[in-house]
């Protein structure tokens, strides 16, 4: 057994094969998230891909590296354990808690697989590729809707409910946009500017979903990246900003954007109390968030457990805002654990000026905005983002990839020689 183990360790071809397979299955698994995980029966495809991906990742780490556990990785598991207390006492939604538990395992797997791949730009490119394949799948499925007369007449319905909730698809697309914008604005090679192609596709699909959260997050991401890119050239920044506003105004007046445009107009009418219509969805979501906080105030320590708001409020759904949902479901302590998991890496990020850190900041912006727009604590994308953030923030100290071990050995030898 020991011999076989040693043989496997020395087999370079096997190592390469597992490495390539990790990359392939990372891409396939991420592709399966928007494509299959929200559909009955199809979600098993996602589970199988996840199982293979976990097996490959941990066998690679086991054979060619060694585990080194950093305490920040415990924040999310502690949050999930805390969630269990409220769930046991109040909501009894153990199935939903299990999802949260599995997501934590996914997060740990993502983290270690990124260590195995040991090239964050490659990881991000694989993720873009996964979303690009999903985009093609989306376009093929909705081909007739997208290229129908409805598109030009502006009466196109919100697309994407074949796969999952339309807003969830919107959030996948905003994640894809965050990655593409990074490659377009901070390319290492000129060819990376070509990421503008998937970016445009993601934007269009995001608009087709009719998700307001997508539009808000996407605009904020563009502003954020432009600000970072041109922070020392304010005039260029303002020219870009003006260009962006003009483009947005032109785009929003195109016929296929009429659904989303009308949704925004109704919000403005609701807020200003002008016009005859009011956006019921906007009003109720706001009310639900207030209600979420009120209920959280009644159960401050443990909260009501996973899906607690849905059960205790009598509404039967979530609050549509992560802040109030997490506060209501997991109490003050659960809330602090969850947001600590987001904020802590930002403060501890050592390579603050390296371009890769901008991705972390962009994700932080996304999380802050999404806190008021959607519930993301049990979202698969969130744990993928956590994986990226924790890999970037912990990677300076990590010495468990083979490349690092070799480098460390070389350094030690060099020091001995000196």
């Amino acid at each position, binding site marked *: 057994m020991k011999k076989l183990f040693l043989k496997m360790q020395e087999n370079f071809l096997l190592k390469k094969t597992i490495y390539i397979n990790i990359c392939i299955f990372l891409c396939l698994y991420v592709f399966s998230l928007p494509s299959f995980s929200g559909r009955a029966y199809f979600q098993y495809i996602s589970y199988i891909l996840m199982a293979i991906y976990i097996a490959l990742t941990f066998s690679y780490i086991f054979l060619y590296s060694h585990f080194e556990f950093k305490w920040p990785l415990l924040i999310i598991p502690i949050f999930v354990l805390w969630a269990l207390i409220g769930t046991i006492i109040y909501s009894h939604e153990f199935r939903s808690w299990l999802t949260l538990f599995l997501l934590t395992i996914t997060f740990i797997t993502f983290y270690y697989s990124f260590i195995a791949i040991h090239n964050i730009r490659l990881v991000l490119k694989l993720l873009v590729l996964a979303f690009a394949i999903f985009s093609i799948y989306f376009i093929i499925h909705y081909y007739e809707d997208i290229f129908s007369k409805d598109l030009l007449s502006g009466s196109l319905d919100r697309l994407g409910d074949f796969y999952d909730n339309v807003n969830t698809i919107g959030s996948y697309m905003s994640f894809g946009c965050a990655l593409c914008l990074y490659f377009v604005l901070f390319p290492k090679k000129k060819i990376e500017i070509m990421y503008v192609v998937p970016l445009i596709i993601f934007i269009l699909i995001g608009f087709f979903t009719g998700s307001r959260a997508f539009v808000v997050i996407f605009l904020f991401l563009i502003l954020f990246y432009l600000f970072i890119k041109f922070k020392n050239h304010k005039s260029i920044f303002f020219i870009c900003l003006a260009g962006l506003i003009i483009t947005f105004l032109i785009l929003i007046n195109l016929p296929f954007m009429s659904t989303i445009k009308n949704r925004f107009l109704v919000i403005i009418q609701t807020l200003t109390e002008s016009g005859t219509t009011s956006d019921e969805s906007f009003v109720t979501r706001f009310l639900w968030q207030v209600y979420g906080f009120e209920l959280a105030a*009644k159960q401050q*320590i443990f909260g009501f457990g996973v899906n607690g708001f849905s059960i205790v409020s009598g509404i039967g759904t979530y609050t549509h805002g992560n802040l109030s949902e997490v506060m209501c479901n997991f109490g*003050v302590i659960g809330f602090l654990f969850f947001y600590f998991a987001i904020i*802590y890496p930002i403060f501890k990020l050592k390579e603050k000026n390296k371009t890769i850190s901008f991705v972390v900041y962009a994700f932080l912006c996304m999380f802050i905005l999404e806190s008021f727009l959607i519930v993301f604590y049990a979202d698969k994308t969130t744990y993928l983002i956590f994986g990226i953030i924790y890999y970037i923030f912990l990677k300076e100290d990590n010495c468990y990839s083979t490349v690092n071990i070799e480098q460390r050995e070389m350094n030690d030898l060099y020091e001995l020689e000196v």
Partner: protein
Amino acid sequence: MKVFNTIRNGFDKLKTNLLKIKKNQKIIVFGCACFSLLLLIPAGDLSSDTKKEYYANQLAEVVKNQTNDGECLSLYVESFDEAENPLYSSVSEFNSLYGIFNENRTTFAGMINSNKSSQIIIDDIDTNQNLSILYTEFNSNVEYNNHYKHEYYPIELMFKGDFNYSGAYSFVYISQSQADILLEKQGKLDEHIVSDYESLISSHINISFNDVTYVYSIADIYLEENYYYETIQNVFGNFVISSNTYPQGFNKQACYFFNTFSFQNEYFMDYINKNYDETNYSLNVCEHNIRNEFTNENELLNFFYNRNVNIVGNFFSIMLFVFSLLILLVSIYLLKIYGIYKKKKNIILGTVFLFSPYLIFKLIYSIFDNVFIFPSLSMLIYLFFIVLFIAFYFAFFFSYYNTDKHIERKL
């Protein structure tokens, strides 16, 4: 500038004096935070919002304990003079409240004779059932799952509907059971099929309003299923659907539905108070769904008839909230200057102090079950204060443990 310097000097002196205290620093800091949180309870009690919460809780209790279905209680608004102060259109009312908390929960119905105080009877159906009328404006029914649905009330219908009621006073939608009785009277005793029901459309029936008979034309037949039908049936009893043309002496009633969730009740209370004043409109309880004899009607309607805001109470409430915030800020400041956050073991002590007021009041509340011991407003502010304190604590904690000074000291 002088004023600024004086304040700064005073502040420095205060800081020097505070720093002289060496003993019991932890108790002072966490005690201040605890006192600040304790103050929130009387602050909340004085506020009008707590009174409103009390009324909402009372309504929830009545729904839970005194209604037949344990789910719904309807309060209805009636105008004293409909010509001068008409009610809002039932369509707009229904739409503005539809699905506000849950799409499958009834929130509004425009009714006539909701409390069964008058006699409305279908003469052709030999029953003693006193009917209520769910009134609608002219509408166009929509296709739904191989049958039809009312344009705005989620009532399911058999047919598209025939609104040509020439020769009749108005149109009416009857229930499937009422239609069955009519068909049986016509001699169709076998199981009825769609064509049987269809034969009733456009036929005339007599409906008497306090013994005065009017001819109505059957426009449609509604199905006795779905949540909306069940709520209307439970809360008002038997009913028909008709137009908003009705005989004199009857009034339109805007019925709002209260349930066991007090926050939702508060919303409807605010909605009623915002849209109707007590001088032109009356508010009543629809007692059809009430189980036993109902004694506390006046108490339930207090939110409408005694709506004057306690300005003095609110003023002192705000003052106490501000005072409480100031004490909390002082405790955060002391936390910083005393460096309490530097010792990890203080986290446990702090947690005990911060949550103890909550636990004490929760315990008392569970015994006495009184909203004034545990007002929502106070608890909500408590929630934000506690997050504020803990966030500052950890911000100091991590900034300290990240500095080189700490590492040097350790070395």
